[in-house]
């Protein structure tokens, strides 16, 4: 029975109570004494001690923003009032104000150091698939050959200290046998890493899989998922992210880094009372942590703040803007001082060219934008279809085998092509790079010019025809493009931590570079065409394929995530190329428009809808002309609304009512006949109070009256003492009349963060509208299945 379920839950929680905080799960009920206020009107009975557990929320429920915010205001007022009394209280109030900044500093430090560790470990493990360093097994390929003098201009990364697996096992470095040994070892390591990743996730923290951004968006809008931002999730996500990235799968680490940063923030919130006890304040810190996550992923603090503002956060007060920026900067600085890239640079793909671009090049940039938009729309549809298949069919019953199969396919196909064998970030750096005489990679394999007079003094590789190396690179890149487009669809969403920024950027960069090289060769062979005449004379360096790669990367990422300003800012912080804002903006805008023509949702909103989270989209407009009475419950034909009366129900009756329904809250009325509204009480608070009263207070039996008013009604002398529950009732619930249009009601829900709203008619209580009802109604209007909204 439901009642026994609850009382056992409380038994167990109380027994483990003493000794501080055993768990760091999100929103765990505060077991120590010292409670939060009890609603917008603080009428705590002075004889009644605040109960632990009252004012907290159940798992998979939405918080009450209004209540949390007013609790915080009450607390702040109390501290300010007390601060005038003594110096200690004054210091307390100063430290309370300062605690927010201290928390941001700690979040930045912790997230920055974790990200530095993840970067170093990921670089090492990725290279472990190819070989080992003999002078110290902890060095990756680049660092192994760092001091060696045997590197040549053509072979920049070969040195005797680095041995590939073929050399160690078979003794040779060349020849078909060595190739096969390398191939097999590559597949072996990839399978081992992905197997470890998925078994660790499954065994210790199943919430650590996936990207994390859709769930964090939902959490920030007020939803509670206990354990999602806990310490085990943090540990497992950190460890398995490195394993997943190193296994060669087509995924990135940016989304999971946002999750890692939010876990750090949630854990550090437990050090400060102000944030531990208040869900709304905690979500302010989590918004800042999301900014920190993107900032350490890319080395882009401003882009991180804008990403948090645009994509992840629900309510973003201006105070959070400054604090997020501070935290993001601290994290970026910590990352820089750890120096994982070995060159003291904050940016990931530093672009060193400053070649100008011409207005006519906007046409191919817009073409890249269209490609990005098309790819984004296609990717979202395909990925959601694949994830839905994983959710509903037998494919979802074998997560470990699925991961192993996908890794095997990826490793099998990726090894022969050098552009898919390298990690995503390396591929993007190489594609963004502008070719000069100092480069010797295949992508810069241009032919020598016809007249070999060395008149130039710089190293510009201007205006040359493509050589054999470049042609090989081009068709390898085309194959890599097709492969990456197909494999990312099935990789994103697997049961290992997976992000999608780097794969999308890689797809866009490849497409951009191909187009750029095409344009460059077109210009070389046709200098006298109308479009090239004037600005692209023979010998001039007019077209930079690296810039096209950058623009393509931005377009594809924008098409998938539908980011706008934050994407442009991230791109130019990533590359340091401030001159290229206009092409980036043109491509991003085009890609967003084209992708929006196919479907309004980005990938994260699509995943939220797939999972049925109760997320009320803040950007959508409610266009239908229904009234509140159409959406409220109970509808015609349903049983009447379950209400409590203010002083005429006994404990037994209340328990029966609560047990027989699943509602998470009950309106309180003056009497059943008048149905005049008094307030609203939550199920959880009610059950905790009644259970506590039965145990602690004398004389409370099932026949005791439950009283929500200030003064108890007159009772015969032999009646058992009444239970006074004035402290847990919310005396100012929000109401609308039955003729309120639904768009105003939805606006109220969105702006105030309500969970439920009561509907009155001529002053009498008529029904209730919850957030779930609104979401179901919106789904029905859009011809979607209303039963897909799962949570409350």
């Amino acid at each position: 029975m439901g009642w026994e379920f609850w009382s056992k839950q409380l038994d167990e929680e109380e027994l483990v109570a003493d000794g501080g905080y055993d768990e760091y799960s999100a929103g765990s009920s505060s077991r120590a004494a010292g409670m939060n206020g009890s609603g917008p009107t603080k009428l705590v009975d002075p004889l009644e001690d605040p109960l632990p557990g009252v004012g907290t929320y159940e798992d998979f429920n939405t918080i009450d923003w209004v209540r949390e915010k007013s609790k915080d205001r009450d607390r702040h007022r109390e501290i300010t009032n007390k601060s005038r009394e003594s110096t200690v209280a004054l210091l307390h109030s100063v430290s309370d104000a300062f605690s927010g900044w201290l928390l941001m500093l700690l979040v930045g430090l912790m997230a920055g150091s974790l990200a530095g560790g993840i970067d170093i470990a990921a670089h090492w493990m990725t290279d472990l698939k190819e070989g080992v360093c003999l002078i110290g097994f902890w060095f990756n390929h680049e660092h192994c050959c760092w001091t060696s003098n045997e590197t040549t201009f053509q072979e920049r990364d070969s040195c005797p200290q680095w041995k590939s697996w073929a050399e160690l096992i078979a003794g040779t470095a060349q020849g078909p046998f060595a190739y096969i040994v390398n191939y097999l070892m590559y597949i072996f390591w990839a399978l081992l890493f992905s197997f470890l990743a998925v078994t660790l996730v499954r065994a210790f923290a199943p919430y650590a899989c996936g990207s994390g951004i859709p769930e964090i968006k939902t959490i920030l809008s007020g939803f509670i998922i206990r354990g999602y931002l806990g310490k085990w999730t943090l540990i497992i996500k950190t460890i398995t992210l490195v394993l997943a990235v190193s296994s060669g799968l087509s995924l990135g680490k940016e989304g999971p880094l946002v999750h890692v940063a939010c876990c750090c923030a949630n854990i550090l919130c437990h050090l400060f009372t102000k944030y531990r006890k208040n869900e709304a304040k905690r979500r302010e810190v989590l918004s800042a942590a999301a900014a920190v996550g993107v900032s350490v992923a890319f080395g882009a603090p401003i882009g991180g703040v804008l990403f948090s503002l645009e994509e992840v956060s629900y309510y973003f007060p201006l105070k959070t803007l400054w604090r997020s920026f501070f935290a993001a900067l601290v994290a970026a600085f910590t990352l820089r001082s750890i120096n994982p890239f070995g060159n003291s640079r904050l940016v990931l793909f530093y672009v060193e060219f400053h070649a100008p671009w011409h207005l006519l090049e906007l046409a191919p940039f817009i073409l890249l934008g269209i490609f990005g938009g098309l790819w984004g729309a296609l990717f979202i549809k395909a990925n959601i279809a694949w994830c839905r298949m994983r959710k509903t069919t037998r494919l979802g019953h074998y997560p470990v085998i699925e991961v192993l199969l996908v890794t095997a396919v990826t490793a099998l196909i990726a090894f022969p092509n050098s552009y898919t064998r390298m990690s995503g970030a390396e591929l993007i750096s190489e594609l963004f790079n502008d070719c000069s005489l100092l480069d010797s990679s295949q992508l810069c394999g241009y032919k020598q010019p016809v007249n070999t007079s060395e008149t130039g003094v710089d190293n510009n590789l201007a205006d040359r025809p493509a050589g054999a190396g470049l042609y090989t690179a081009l068709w390898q890149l085309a194959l890599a493009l097709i492969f990456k487009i197909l494999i990312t669809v099935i990789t994103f969403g697997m049961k290992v931590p997976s992000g999608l920024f780097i794969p999308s950027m890689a797809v866009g960069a490849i497409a951009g570079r191909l187009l750029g090289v095409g344009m460059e060769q077109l210009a070389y062979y046709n200098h006298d065409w109308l479009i090239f005449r004037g600005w692209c004379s023979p010998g001039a360096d007019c077209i930079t394929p690296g810039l096209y790669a950058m623009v393509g990367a931005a377009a594809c990422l924008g098409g998938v995530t539908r980011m706008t300003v934050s994407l442009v800012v991230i791109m130019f912080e990533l590359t340091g190329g401030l001159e290229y804002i206009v092409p980036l903006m043109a491509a991003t805008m085009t890609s967003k428009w084209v992708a929006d023509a196919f479907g309004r949702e980005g990938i994260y909103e699509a995943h939220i809808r797939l999972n049925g989270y109760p997320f009320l989209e803040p950007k959508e407009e409610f266009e239908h002309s229904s009234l509140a009475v159409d959406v409220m419950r109970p509808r015609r034909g349903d049983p009447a609304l379950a209400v409590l009366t203010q002083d005429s129900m006994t404990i037994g009756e209340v328990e029966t009512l609560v047990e027989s329904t699943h509602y998470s809250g009950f309106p309180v009325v003056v009497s059943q006949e008048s149905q005049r509204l008094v307030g609203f009480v939550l199920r959880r608070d009610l059950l905790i109070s009644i259970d506590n009263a039965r145990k602690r207070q004398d004389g409370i039996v099932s026949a005791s009256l439950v009283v929500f008013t200030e003064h108890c009604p007159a009772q015969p002398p032999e009646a058992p003492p009444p239970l006074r529950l004035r402290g847990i009732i919310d005396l100012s619930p929000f109401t609308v009349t039955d003729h309120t249009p639904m768009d105003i009601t939805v606006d109220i829900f969105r702006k105030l963060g309500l969970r439920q709203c009561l509907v009155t008619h001529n002053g009498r209580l008529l029904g209730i509208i919850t957030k779930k009802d609104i979401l179901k109604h919106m789904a029905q209007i859009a011809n979607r299945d209303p039963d897909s909204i799962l949570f409350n």
Partner: protein
Amino acid sequence: MKFLFGVEAFCLACFVLLSQVSAKNSEDIRCKCICPPYREVEGQIYKQNVSLKDCNCLHVVEPMPVDGKDVEAYCLRCECKYEERSSGTIKVTIIIYLSILGLLLLYMVYLTLLEPMLKRRLFGHSQLIHSDDDVVGDQQPFANAHNVLSRSHSRPNMLNKVEHAQQRWRRQVQEQRKSVFDRHVVLS
């Protein structure tokens, strides 16, 4: 659990400190000069452990492949960069990472293989207390909780608290696993 978290926090602290404190090995700085092909001379890469002020073509490119009057033209094309790294940080990070990974794998092996065997041997087949078998309904975990609690009343000490916390944690992970892997309710 608290212990593991404490260990991780300690490791993080060490790591951040070490990255600042680790002595600047002479091996950890270098000046890398890349010189492109010039006339008959091939492209070359030169590396030397010099400090920032000496990081230019004349100090690093040895032996100079061209003579006297061509040196300036050759050096104009070379690009020299000063780079620093901290090999101590890399070493410490990788070792910490591998040890945490090893600990987790050992713990996983212990939980899945060794613990049921040990419990069965110690307590016999009759008591179902510590079995983390499939949960049939909502009642099962709390039925177990009552058994555990009744036992814990008799021996309230540190070991029991740890045991109890571990039981609770395992139940939570099981719930999470059910929602994510079996019912596909969260995180499709």
